[in-house]
């Protein structure tokens, strides 16, 4: 009786699969066919369940279970007729009115025959668990015929797939034909073979599993748009079988023992639990050690990520691109490789190419606009071919691929703007990019973003100059980037900052973003490293933080995402020491998260003293999960209070005698200039430092000062 659940759950499963498959097949001829198949097999399963429930023993007049049994059979036969029609032209979206009409006529005919005559089944009854059918004269013809229709369709599709040029279409067709065959075999065993030949009717309801198998088959046939490695599929199926055997068998034995003994369940339950724990542990070990070898290429993803993390961006544009090409080409084995980067004219130009050196893609190209609108990061050619969601633009996209001689594209974007594209050509092995390759390309996207950002913003030949083997930025450019922030413009705040890099390159940055008329986000900090790498990392991080700010409502999440970004994408050893915060002028409050900022001073007019408020903090980019360490702090800002934030450059500066400037000197300087405007104070603090160091600046200096007026316009 418990098997009835299967027949009632099957329609739910089919409905779910249909809903998931629907976006893949909308606007195609398959949309209504797969809907019809889902409905028909749902009717089959549901009706069989009803028939089983309502059938009684030893009664010759049972119209309800008889009706539902005939309905179930008609629905199953109709389902296989519909499936046969699908197999005639799947996966090509072509219409065939004649075939449609013939299929419809056959479906109508089978329903009419089954429900209107006694040709299929004369009577049914259920004795204990056995469901018994009294077969009509055409029973064998209908059951065998329906199965034959399904099998013929599946075999026909299989044969067609062998002649298909597109491997992804071939794969989809194979999945559907295999799913159909598996469904028919399962249904035949439980619905026909066991009851008829072996006289086992108690498992009859398991035949409804055939509809689930079929549903899974058609779902994957339309939703998989990337080639997968059959070895990986085999590995996964084998993993599940091993897990089931090692856990299921001992637990089953324990349950059997319990049933036999029927005394206290404690020992069998404990035994089953122990078997479960041991069995699952052994199974996982076996799968990880022995079956990973079948997967084979799993290790290449990690090696690829590690190699990209070590790319030295200070090596120069050509050297960087050459290195990236060599890192990617080794495991992926592509024939051609092109990197397109956005130029000053807004078009994409080839920064590196193994073939088409002078290639250009217009910035207003429709294909580019389409990729931007879909938010695509990685797109395989097989996706464009096989995913029906791309059908309206398939021709344009395939031409785009052709122009780049690509089989895979990695589209690097900064917000809505396309920074560039990595175009990978066809595999030298002749194979297509697989689902594993797709996931790997997605995993390395962040690192490729860093490379392309460097190519676009730094390594432009027009601003390069080589000094002592270092690539130097124009000081005007780096200062303009530093100055390109929203200013705090609020009647309650007199704010100013100074940011001075040493040797024209550095990792300090400060940024403000106006969230609303009364709320301003700020970040002040220092990205570790030296020279070009630090500047690069600083610029990229600044951009990413602004992106996160657009996407995140939770303030702490911005810090978490920045941490993850640094950890995963910036050169190894990079970290950020600073503070994230925001001012809420309506509430006269500052909120902040200390991520390793060395000093935040607040002058309190109430207590007429300067206090350190930064508290404990931890740098970003050192550990993977920073969330337990992030503490949001709240500081009320009273009228005439003064805030001072600096990076460690001031504190670590040394005099000619080697003495650190330190916190105390900074505090004294702050105290001495507390009556100045924010601008004068920041400049005075900086000048005091230069006096101390005899005008030597060894590290980046960032000073941010804010004088608060709770009542706007009040005199200082």
């Amino acid at each position: 009786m418990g098997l009835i659940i299967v027949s009632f759950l099957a329609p739910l499963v089919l409905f779910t699969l249909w809903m998931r498959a629907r976006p893949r097949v909308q606007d195609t001829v398959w949309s209504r066919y797969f809907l019809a198949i889902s409905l028909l097999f749902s009717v089959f399963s549901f009706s069989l369940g009803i028939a089983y429930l309502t059938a009684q023993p030893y009664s010759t007049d049972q119209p309800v279970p008889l009706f539902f049994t005939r309905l179930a059979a008609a629905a199953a036969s109709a389902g296989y007729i519909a499936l046969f029609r699908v197999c005639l032209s799947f996966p090509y979206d072509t219409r065939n009115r004649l075939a449609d009409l013939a299929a419809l006529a056959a479906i109508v005919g089978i329903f009419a025959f089954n429900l209107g005559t006694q040709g299929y089944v004369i009577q049914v009854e259920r004795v204990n668990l056995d469901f018994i059918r009294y077969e009509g004269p055409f029973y064998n013809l209908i059951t065998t015929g329906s199965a034959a229709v399904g099998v013929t369709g599946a075999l026909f599709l299989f044969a067609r797939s062998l002649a298909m040029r597109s491997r992804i279409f071939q794969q989809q067709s194979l999945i559907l034909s295999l799913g159909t065959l598996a469904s028919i075999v399962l249904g035949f065993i439980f619905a026909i073979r066991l009851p008829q030949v072996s006289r086992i009717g108690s498992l009859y309801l398991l035949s409804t599993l055939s509809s689930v198998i079929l549903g899974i088959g058609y779902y994957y046939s339309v939703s998989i748009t990337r080639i997968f490695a059959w070895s990986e599929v085999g590995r996964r199926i084998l993993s599940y079988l091993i897990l089931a055997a090692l856990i299921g068998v001992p637990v089953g034995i324990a349950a059997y023992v319990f049933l036999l003994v029927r005394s206290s369940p404690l020992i069998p339950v404990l035994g089953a639990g122990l078997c479960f724990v041991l069995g699952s542990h052994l199974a996982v070990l076996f799968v990880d050690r022995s079956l990973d070898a079948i997967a084979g290429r799993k290790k290449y993803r990690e090696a690829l990520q590690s190699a990209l993390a070590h790319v030295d961006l200070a090596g120069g544009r050509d050297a960087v691109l050459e290195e990236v090409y060599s890192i990617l080409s080794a495991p992926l084995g592509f024939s051609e490789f092109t990197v397109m980067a956005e130029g000053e004219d807004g078009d994409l130009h080839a920064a590196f190419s193994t073939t088409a050196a002078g290639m250009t893609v217009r910035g207003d190209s429709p294909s580019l606009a389409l990729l931007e609108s879909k938010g695509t990061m990685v797109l395989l050619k097989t996706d464009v071919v096989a995913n029906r969601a791309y059908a309206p633009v398939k021709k344009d996209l395939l031409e785009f691929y052709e122009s780049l001689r690509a089989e895979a594209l990695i589209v690097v974007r900064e917000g809505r703007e396309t920074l560039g594209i990595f175009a990978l050509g066809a595999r030298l092995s002749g194979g297509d990019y697989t689902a594993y390759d797709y996931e790997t390309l997605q995993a390395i996207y962040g690192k490729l973003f860093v490379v392309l950002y460097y190519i676009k913003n730094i390594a432009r030949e027009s601003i390069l100059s080589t000094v002592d083997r270092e690539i130097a930025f124009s000081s005007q450019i780096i200062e303009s980037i530093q100055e390109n922030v929203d200013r705090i413009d609020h009647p309650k705040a007199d704010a100013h900052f100074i940011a001075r890099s040493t040797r024209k390159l550095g990792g300090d940055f400060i940024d403000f973003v106006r969230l609303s008329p009364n709320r301003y986000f700020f970040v002040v900090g220092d990205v570790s490293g030296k020279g070009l790498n630090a500047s690069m990392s600083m610029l990229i991080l600044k951009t990413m933080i602004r992106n996160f700010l657009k996407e995140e409502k939770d303030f702490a999440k911005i810090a978490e995402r920045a941490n993850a970004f640094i950890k995963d994408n910036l050169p190894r050893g990079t970290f950020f020491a600073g503070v994230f915060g925001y001012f809420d002028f309506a509430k006269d409050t500052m909120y902040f998260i200390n991520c390793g900022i060395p000093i935040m001073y607040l002058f309190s007019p109430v207590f007429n003293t300067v206090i350190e408020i930064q508290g404990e903090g931890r740098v970003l980019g050192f550990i993977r999960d920073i969330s337990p360490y992030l503490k949001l702090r709240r500081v009320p800002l009273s009228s005439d209070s003064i805030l001072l934030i600096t990076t460690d450059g001031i504190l670590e500066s040394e005099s000619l005698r080697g003495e650190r400037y330190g916190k105390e000197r900074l505090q004294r300087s702050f105290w001495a200039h507390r009556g100045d405007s924010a601008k004068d104070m920041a400049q005075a603090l900086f000048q005091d430092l230069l006096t101390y160091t005899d005008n030597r600046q060894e590290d980046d200096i960032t000073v941010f000062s804010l004088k608060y007026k709770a009542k706007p316009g009040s005199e200082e």
Partner: protein
Amino acid sequence: MNQLTIEERQENGRTVLEFAGPVNSYTFTEFQERVYKAVKKADLVVNLEKVTTLSSAGLGVLMAAMEEAEEGGRKLWIFKPSEIVRLAIESTGFTDKFPVLKTLKDLD
């Protein structure tokens, strides 16, 4: 002292690198090269007792080297960090993540 001096020796299957002087923008490259090269081959002890300055870049080298060592199944220790180095490590907020040794006997 503006120069960074480096001494290397092998001890019980481990490499010991002793640095003396500043790790700043002038000496950082050499610091990085020696630490990375050593950590790829064997367990590494980095003696920073006589380091007078440790820039953020130098601190980043130690962090990166710790990761490299862990990935390669090796260990890295920081031996007798000077006051400056200790303050730099503390500034990260992750003092407990840095493997610091007070004596080499602690290894055995």
